[in-house]
């Protein structure tokens, strides 16, 4: 009797599932677009998905992290449609940048941060460089309290670190120090460690850490657009040269005013449109007209 009951139950379940499969098959076809890459950029791209879905209900976009390296590798290998990165593809060895198309979706400021109890608010470029190369090991050498400096660097190979090394260290190699991969972790460590210094992306800055001025200039959006604050980098989304129409539609949406005016601002990135300078993969600056 029990067996019969389970038989009936099983048949009913299979029938229901079959019906479901048939029904789901009948609905309109859905195109999938997958974005893999920079974890720092992920929140912004993810936030753009609901708005995009309103315009293109048949395109489902999945946004995943995995890191800039993964993003570039996978989009180059054709495994995913979009690869987000915070470095130029040209700056990464092992990637054939000529196969990829770069779409810049935002500009991110990079800001040095210290433990808030330290009381240091300003450093010169030289002092910052000396701290990260290990020439200066105590805060009192740069006008702060007598406190050992704990340097927290970013993961080697990460876009933020690459930009920081190019713009601040100018070719000198940094001391071997603690390396952390993510903005959040860096922030937590700096907030909890006396005498700690590191650098994070501007959108992640909050009250738990103290931002430093560089040569008296504060890391504000206005200063970034004019390059008065030189520590900034692009946030890229790469596609292959022959990208699918769906992927192209999503990238176009990311660069559209709907995203650039509202979401980018809300996420504390700087909109690409407002920049008055442009930088290429070799760090050459060119002034562009317009801006705000």
């Amino acid at each position, binding site marked *: 009797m029990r067996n019969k009951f389970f038989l009936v139950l099983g048949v009913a379940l299979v029938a229901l599932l079959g019906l479901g499969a048939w029904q789901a098959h009948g609905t309109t076809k859905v195109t999938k677009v997958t974005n893999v890459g920079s*974890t720092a950029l992920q929140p912004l791209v993810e936030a753009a998905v609901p708005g995009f879905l309103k315009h293109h209900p048949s395109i489902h976009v999945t946004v995943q*992290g*995995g*890191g*800039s*390296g*993964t993003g*570039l*590798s996978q989009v180059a*290998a054709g495994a995913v449609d979009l690869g987000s990165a915070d470095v130029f593809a040209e700056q*990464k*060895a*092992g*990637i054939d940048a000529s196969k990829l198309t770069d779409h810049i979706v935002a500009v991110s400021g990079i800001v040095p941060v210290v433990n808030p109890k330290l009381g240091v608010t300003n450093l010169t470029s030289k002092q910052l460089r000396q701290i990260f190369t290990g020439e200066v090991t105590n805060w009192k050498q740069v006008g702060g309290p007598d406190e*050992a400096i*704990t340097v927290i660097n970013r*993961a*080697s*190979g*990460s876009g933020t670190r690459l930009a920081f090394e190019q713009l601040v260290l100018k070719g000198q*190699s940094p001391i*071997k*120090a*603690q*390396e*952390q*991969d993510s903005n959040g*972790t860096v922030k*937590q*460590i700096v907030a*909890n*460690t006396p005498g*700690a210094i590191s650098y994070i992306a501007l959108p992640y800055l909050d009250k738990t850490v103290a931002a430093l001025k560089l040569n008296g200039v504060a890391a504000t959006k206005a200063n970034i657009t004019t390059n008065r604050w030189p520590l900034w980098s692009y946030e890229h989304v790469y596609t292959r040269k022959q990208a699918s129409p769906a992927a192209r539609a999503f990238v176009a949406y990311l660069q559209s005013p709907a995203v650039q005016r509202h979401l980018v601002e809300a996420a504390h990135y700087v909109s690409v449109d407002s920049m008055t300078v442009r930088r290429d993969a070799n760090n050459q600056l060119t002034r562009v007209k317009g801006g705000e």
Partner: protein
Amino acid sequence: MKNWSNRLTGPSPESRCEAHGRWITRLALVVIAALVLSIIGFLLCRGSRLFLTGEGTLSAFLLGTNWDPGHQAFGAAPMIVTSLFVTLLAGLLALPLALAVALATTEILPRGAKRFLQPGIELLVGIPSVVYGLVGLTILVPLTRKLLGGTGFGLLTGAGVLFLMVMPTMTSMAIDALEAVPNQLRRASAGLGATRWQTIHRVVLPTARGGILTALIFGMARAFGEALAVQMVIGNAAVMPHGLGSSAATLTSVLTTGMGNTIMNTPENDALWSLALVLLLMSFLFNLATRLVSRKKG
């Protein structure tokens, strides 16, 4: 006669059921074996690329102390040493406590104690490693800073967090090992006038030694492979450690930090897979050694 030989030979529902059972269990085993072997093969394949492409040599990899994959320096010795040391330290810290809890619940406390303990242990296993890392960052790091001076990040803190993470697993397995000791043995020992400690020390622990060793292996294996939590408190700097308070990096923490930032099939990325292979080989050797030790004495 004919009749009987018919009655006793040939298939029956029972023999069909048995064949069926054998088939299905063997299938499961084959699936698992295929999975395990493909992972091992996968790691061997990826992990040896660095050496096969000629970008690095095995001896420089195992003995070199300079890890800077961006500049073709692939010395993994600091991480190997750190991983081993931190794991051992965490295991040695956790084992006495895990064993004490297990002994207390199985040998000393009334049976009801286990009912409260078990859900507690299972809870601790389920806490995400990030949360352990955060607890380490907010509690253990300042504590170590006071204790040892310096930054507070380092080997000891890393081992401390790992100790917290592996203790529940080890406790749970140690309890299982002690419970597997037949009660007759305990009664026989008590009947000979042995005190509780003598029974534990001379009968229970020797009998359960295999299981306790397994608990240790599993606990340390988990410590060995843990990344996210350790990475937050160990200082994550790929340098040779020179003291309990010095910053260091484990194989897994370097692996996890670097994996997302490197391009596949570049030497930087291959070096990370080689680290994973080292991890696999070391835990293999470690398992083998423990097996040999337990067999020799048991």
